[in-house]
């Protein structure tokens, strides 16, 4: 019998099952319930860890950096402005190849102030050198959290588990929590070879001069690319252990004759699935979900898009002066491919605007033109704007 759990509560329980020795976080909506639930588990004696209450997200990231550098399994969580305040440290963590796990409860970025869900925060740190996984539902958030620790520790790279704020964090749904035995079997105790240890002194993050800096960056770049294999292995091994598929890099499904694909990340996938099922008159659509955004799994994306004439990318963020991050990345990747699909990009659901079932039909209709707009906000209500801003 699955448990009825709020997403944040389920994620907190999953974190506890992973037995991190250090958790440091600063509360921010919509991540708050994750930290509250972890605090309660610790206070109730059900989760034995050093829980560090810090005065800012900068400190939260710094504490887990230090803890993991010293060999502890460490965890933190944040959202939006909190992720931005952490950003300097996020680069430090990946630059020093410190393995740890962060849950990003995705939220819009100010200004104007908005506490609701989109994925602008994650996009803002897309080049920070972290592995970034996006979850479609809360079951996947639980399972991905466990996988994330193994991926981090095997690759010596930090992993950001992205879950849509409110849409997932504040939704109660049926959850199969894994057993402690299964998590322990999947996740052996963390032994960090390069840990800070007075008996074996090493330095981390020291000054690296131009003679070595490009080599360090190259090594990090290669490590992130190579992480694909560990992400796939973690998904495969976890499915073998608990019998649940989470997806690995890219998930695609739809009728074989579909020539149009719709690609997204995160929880709108479920709504698009329901939209497709509810509207059999729509043209056949292949739904493609990017679970792994960093490293960008180009071969898997190419395979998922095989045979498509048209690819519609639905993004939960916007890149001012450019359009869409993912749209642009995919256009660049497909630019030299002979039978590449035409790529249409839209932002949708910015700042928590509800994404209804009609979104799928609207996306198909809006991308029917021969000359697609470079990038557009799909659910814009232009009449709300003065003429000059439309």
């Amino acid at each position, binding site marked *: *019998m699955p448990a*009825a759990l709020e997403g944040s509560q389920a994620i907190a329980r999953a974190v506890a099952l992973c037995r991190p020795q250090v958790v440091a976080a600063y509360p921010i909506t919509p991540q708050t319930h994750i930290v509250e639930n972890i605090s309660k588990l610790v206070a109730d004696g059900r989760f034995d860890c050093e829980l560090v209450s810090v005065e800012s997200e900068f400190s939260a990231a710094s504490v887990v950096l230090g803890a993991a550098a010293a060999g502890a399994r460490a965890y933190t969580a944040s959202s939006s402005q909190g992720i931005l305040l952490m950003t300097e440290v996020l680069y430090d963590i990946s630059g020093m190849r410190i393995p740890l796990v962060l849950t990003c409860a995705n939220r819009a970025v100010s200004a104007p102030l908005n506490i609701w869900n989109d994925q602008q925060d994650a996009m803002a740190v897309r080049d920070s050198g972290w592995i970034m996984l996006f979850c479609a539902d809360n079951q996947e958030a639980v399972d991905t959290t466990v996988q994330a620790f193994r991926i981090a520790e095997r690759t010596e790279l930090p992993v950001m588990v992205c879950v849509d704020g409110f849409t997932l964090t*504040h939704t*109660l749904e*049926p959850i199969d929590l894994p057993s402690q035995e299964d998590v322990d079997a999947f996740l052996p105790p963390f032994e960090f070879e390069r840990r800070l240890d007075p008996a074996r002194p090493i330095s981390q993050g020291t000054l690296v001069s131009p003679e070595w800096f490009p080599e360090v960056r190259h090594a990090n770049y290669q490590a992130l690319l190579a992480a694909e294999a560990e992400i796939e292995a973690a998904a495969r091994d976890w499915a073998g252990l608990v019998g649940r598929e989470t997806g690995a890099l890219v998930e695609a499904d739809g009728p074989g004759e579909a020539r149009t694909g719709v690609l997204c990340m995160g929880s709108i996938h479920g709504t698009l*699935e*329901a*939209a497709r099922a509810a509207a059999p008159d729509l043209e056949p659509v292949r739904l493609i979900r990017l679970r792994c955004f960093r490293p960008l799994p180009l071969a898997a994306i190419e395979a998922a898009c095989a045979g498509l004439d048209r690819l519609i990318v639905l993004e939960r963020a916007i890149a001012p002066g450019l359009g869409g991050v993912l749209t642009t990345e995919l256009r660049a990747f497909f630019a030299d491919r002979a039978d590449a699909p035409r790529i249409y990009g839209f932002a949708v659901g910015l700042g928590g605007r509800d994404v209804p079932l009609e979104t799928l039909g609207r996306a198909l209709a809006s991308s029917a033109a021969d000359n697609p707009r470079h990038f557009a906000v799909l659910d814009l209500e232009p009449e709300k704007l003065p003429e000059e801003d439309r």
Partner: protein
Amino acid sequence: MLEIRIHGRGGQGNVVAAYLLATAAIGEGRHAQAFPAFGAERRGAPVAAFVRIAAHPIHRRDQVRSPDFLIIQDQTLVHVPGVTTGLKPGGGILVNSERPAAELGLDPGFVTLTLPATRLAQEYLGRPVPNTALLAAFLSLTGALPLEALIEALAQRFKGDILERNRKLVEAAAHEVPAGAWKEDEDARSA
């Protein structure tokens, strides 16, 4: 799929009501989803929460726009614009009110019933929190889930004397409404 929208004011246990209902459904082996429409979370401000219950896994995550039923925790909300928007024709509205339904002036195309939920809560719990009484009455009206499922859901939150008081409140509130009066609606919609 059964879709329910719960309206209330911040502090009335609106989200908890949605979570309890979905928890009760999951406990009965159904699939269910509950989530709030968060605005600014101020005590007293109008808030809404959504529940979906189905026999199959629920994938969609959009807000409930065409509910089968409304549960309104505060009678002063019944004429707030948007509260009854999208309710399916003939849909049921359960309002926390001391007044007869006819006095509330709601669209006669809907089926409105009232329950003095605040008074019942005050009597059984000593606190003016109407959510549990309304859920009990809703389940009694629709037969969507057995009352025991709601009590099981309450048992995940409360223990001892508080749970016992809630159990008595559930039974009392269920008896205040005509059991099964909305059952055909529920059967048709959850089919």
